[in-house]
């Protein structure tokens, strides 16, 4: 009779998935079978071994308890069911000592499961550790699982109480959970025990099947979706944004409705378990700004359930996609606010934290693309930056400098085509007062080390990174194609840059457009030069330095150690870390084009980060990004004024600290940050 329910169960699990898949199929086809080995490795490590989940010890333990318990008990139950069908003791598995071992495993994992449920309950209702989003599913899944495990022990205990406890009292140790229950129910009459056993057994089985039925309707689907999403995960750097191919012929730019996303982007919405790890790591959310990556995903998921479902029905009927959707909430503005889209730093913290491998950045940028290119609707400051980029080839509106102002008093070799490296100075390195000192330091170091390099000077344009992060893919492609033509014509093979944003774009995004260069960040080159003995830092005054990771150097490009090793090789420098460092580093606030935006919210991200730097007690903050420097320069004074006005912590680029060694008693004083144009 029970087995009659099985096809129903299969239907209950499969049917919603099929329904749901119609929504996924609204998206652009995006089948990802390239690099299958790496993808399978992702499935094994990220999906089955739950590598990401384990990054957080508490929820890692919780998840491991629940997952192992469910898997083991499922297998245990399945084994029992199979065993039941075997004809006789000759071939049966669960007899004798084997049965005792089996029982012990079952009991242990039952207890493990209950511990997991307890941890999960505490995580949700007692002391949430992340920006949790509680939904009815949480009650259903945990409540159901708890009930399942408890009734499992009750059924076992009643069985033991009615028979085993009398027949084989020595077996107690093999069923510890059941034995305790048996003791409790020992006073009941055997008939009562058997009746209860019967009733609870049915309850247990129905609960078990119902619980499995949740698979199709709740976030329990992550059991399937997470490994699959691990397979689909972007194998390239998370700093690489997807290209819009043939943009001139594109029917739409970016995503203003669900069917503009790719199938993968729609599918992964359903993988979200709203654990809140992304939001807890999000710099905007930490600063109280209007962005929660989890809610972007969840709200899109809900939007898919309502508007998306209707679209899918329309599509199935061959009707217009938006038929009957007049007055339905729009995706941008309705499901997701524009403020949230602009508050994103594209720092990748959410992407890195997500245990089910959701990639938030491309989805957020796709919606920015729609705002900028379709609707031309964006914050005034974004428009200003983009217009300046179009007209002047750099995003620094109102700069008083040319691309050669920083060279004053310094012999800088112009690019001849003969040198080994093109030093790509970048707009910020050339046009922003504070960053010019970084550029000058890099040039001094490269010359000291005898590196063969040249610069493009006035002929250097922007490589398009800001346009791309701000959603103007068209402008990015134009700028990139022009620059690739310039670089190829100039015979450039190797590019060194001190800007992680330039670095990321050259390294990860240019190859797709036909620009293939060996790209190296100045921190990596400088470390090599130190290794090769071409640079020898001299003793400086005793100082402690804390290093801040630029997102586009660290998280997106996995360069964490080179700048740190440079610092530790400067004599008398002691490196101290902020609590959030390396992979867990917090964005300075400038990423994703926010360098050119006004922040809205409780706090500024750069002040949050500056406070963390000040709290280390270090003498200096160091970074390897000209954006981070500017954010620290404006954040540090504010924070220090609040706490200890006597503190004079300043931020430096790693090249500045290396070039400044040796130091006399007076440390190098960077020029103050550029004032806004009047």
């Amino acid at each position, binding site marked *: 009779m029970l087995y009659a329910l099985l096809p129903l169960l299969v239907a209950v699990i499969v049917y919603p998935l099929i329904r749901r898949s119609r929504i996924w199929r609204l998206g652009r086809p995006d089948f990802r079978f390239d690099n299958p080995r790496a993808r399978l490795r992702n499935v094994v490590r990220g999906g089955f071994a739950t590598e990401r989940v384990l990054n957080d010890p508490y929820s890692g333990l919780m998840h491991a308890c629940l997952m192992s318990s469910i898997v083991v008990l499922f297998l245990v139950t399945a084994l029992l069911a199979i065993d039941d069908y075997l004809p006789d003791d000759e071939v049966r598995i669960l007899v004798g000592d084997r049965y005792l071992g089996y029982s012990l495993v079952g009991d242990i994992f039952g207890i493990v499961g209950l511990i997991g449920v307890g941890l999960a309950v505490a995580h949700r209702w007692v002391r949430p550790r992340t920006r949790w989003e509680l939904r009815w599913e949480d009650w259903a899944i945990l409540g159901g699982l708890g009930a399942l495990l408890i009734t499992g022990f009750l059924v076992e205990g009643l069985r033991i109480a009615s028979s085993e406890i009398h027949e084989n009292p020595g077996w107690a140790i093999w069923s510890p959970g059941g034995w305790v229950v048996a003791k409790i129910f020992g006073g009941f009459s055997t008939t009562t025990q058997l009746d209860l056993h019967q009733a609870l057994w049915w309850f247990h089985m129905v609960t078990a099947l119902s619980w499995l039925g949740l698979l199709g309707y709740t976030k329990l689907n992550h059991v399937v979706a997470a490994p699959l999403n691990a397979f689909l995960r972007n194998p390239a750097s998370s700093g690489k944004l997807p290209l819009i191919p043939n943009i*001139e012929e594109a029917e739409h*730019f970016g995503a203003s409705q669900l069917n503009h996303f790719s199938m993968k982007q729609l599918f992964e919405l359903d993988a979200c378990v709203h654990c809140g790890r992304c939001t807890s790591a999000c710099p905007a959310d930490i600063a109280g700004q209007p962005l929660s990556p989890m809610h972007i995903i969840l709200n899109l998921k809900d939007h898919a359930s309502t508007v998306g479902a209707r679209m899918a029905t329309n599509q199935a009927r061959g009707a217009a996609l938006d038929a009957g959707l007049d007055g339905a909430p729009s995706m941008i503005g309705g499901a997701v606010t524009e403020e949230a889209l602009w508050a994103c730093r594209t720092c990748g913290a959410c992407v890195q934290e997500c245990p089910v491998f959701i990639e938030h950045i491309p989805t957020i940028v796709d919606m920015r693309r729609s705002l*900028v*290119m*379709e*609707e*031309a609707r*964006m914050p*005034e400051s974004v*428009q200003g930056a*983009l*217009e*300046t980029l*179009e*007209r*002047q*080839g*750099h995003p620094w*509106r*109102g*700069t*008083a*400098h*040319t*691309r050669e*102002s920083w060279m004053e008093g310094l012999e800088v070799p112009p690019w001849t085509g003969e040198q080994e490296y093109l030093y790509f100075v970048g707009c910020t390195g050339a046009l922003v007062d504070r960053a010019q000192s970084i550029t000058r330091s890099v040039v001094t170091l490269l010359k000291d080390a005898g590196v063969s390099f040249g610069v493009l000077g*006035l*002929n250097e*344009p922007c490589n398009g990174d800001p346009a791309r992060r701000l959603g103007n893919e*068209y402008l990015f492609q134009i700028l990139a194609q022009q620059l690739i033509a310039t670089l190829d014509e100039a015979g450039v093979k190797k590019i060194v840059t001190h800007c992680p944003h330039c670095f990321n774009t050259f390294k990860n995004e240019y190859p797709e457009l036909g620009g293939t260069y060996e790209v190296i960040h100045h921190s990596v080159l400088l470390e090599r030069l130190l290794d090769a003995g071409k640079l020898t830092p001299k003793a400086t005054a005793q100082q402690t330095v804390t290093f801040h990771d630029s997102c586009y150097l660290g998280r997106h490009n996995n360069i964490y150690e080179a700048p740190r090793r440079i610092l530790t090789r400067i004599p008398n420098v002691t490196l101290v870390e902020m609590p959030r460092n390396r992979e867990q580093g917090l964005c300075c606030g400038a990423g994703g084009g926010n360098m050119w935006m006004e922040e809205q919210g409780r706090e500024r991200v750069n002040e949050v980060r500056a406070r963390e730097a000040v709290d280390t007690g270090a003498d200096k903050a160091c970074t390897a990004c000209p954006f981070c420097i500017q954010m620290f320069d404006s954040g540090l004074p504010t924070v220090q004024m609040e706490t200890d006005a006597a503190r004079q912590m300043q931020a430096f680029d790693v090249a500045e600290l290396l070039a400044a060694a040796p130091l006399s008693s007076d440390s190098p004083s960077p020029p103050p940050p550029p004032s806004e144009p009047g």
Partner: protein
Amino acid sequence: MDAIVCVKQILDPEMPASAFKVDEASMTIVPPPGVQQVISPFDAQAVEAALQLRDAAGAGTIGVLSLGPDSARDAVKHGLAMGADEGYHLNDPAFEDGDSWTTALALSKAIEKIGLPDVLLFGRQAADWDYGVVGGMVAELLDLPSVTVLRSVEWRDGKIGASRVVSDGFESVITATPCVLTISNEFGDPRYPQLRQIMQAAKKDVTVWTPADLGLDPHAVGAAGARVKMEQLFVPKNETQVEFIDGDSPAEKAQALARKLREAKIV
């Protein structure tokens, strides 16, 4: 509500002052590398004003008209990308090196050829030579009312309500149409063109006219017809040497500055 907006292509006025160079011998600007030609910002605001007036009126055709060399076509295209419908380009060697007068003459002939719309719009001045003359002259040549240096415009059923920026405040003006309006920076930022419109604008034809097309003698326009002759162009020398006020604290610097101002009898 039909409108024609006259726009000029100029060297980006936002270029840093340090990049600005002139060739005194040829009396021309030396365009610095990387600095682009753009639509004069006040003119882009005039296009925006035209689009807003049309939106308010409900319908109408907006033409964008420019006089200039081949590159001026981009200024017309910019107007089209913002949402204008038709582009006109007065382009002929004979038009080169004219002055405000010859420009106004050619534009007024072109406007007559297109057909006088309800509203003619101009930027308050071209942000290169900073004259601010062409709008007024066109109004005079076509005998139209003109309202200049506007911070806002409003469509009022066949009339235009406008707010003029004057030295001590603002004047509200109501003008009959057809009329000439010149738009000032107080108007607010022009819209950012949508990519689709940029692409459509790229495909749109721009009508090109020569003096002959306008019934003008080539000697009446351009350098031959110009009435203002440039004698000299230079970058003014600035010999001021700043004295930075020293002090151990901001307060000390402030006090030192106050004393210096007093000693120099400036206050």
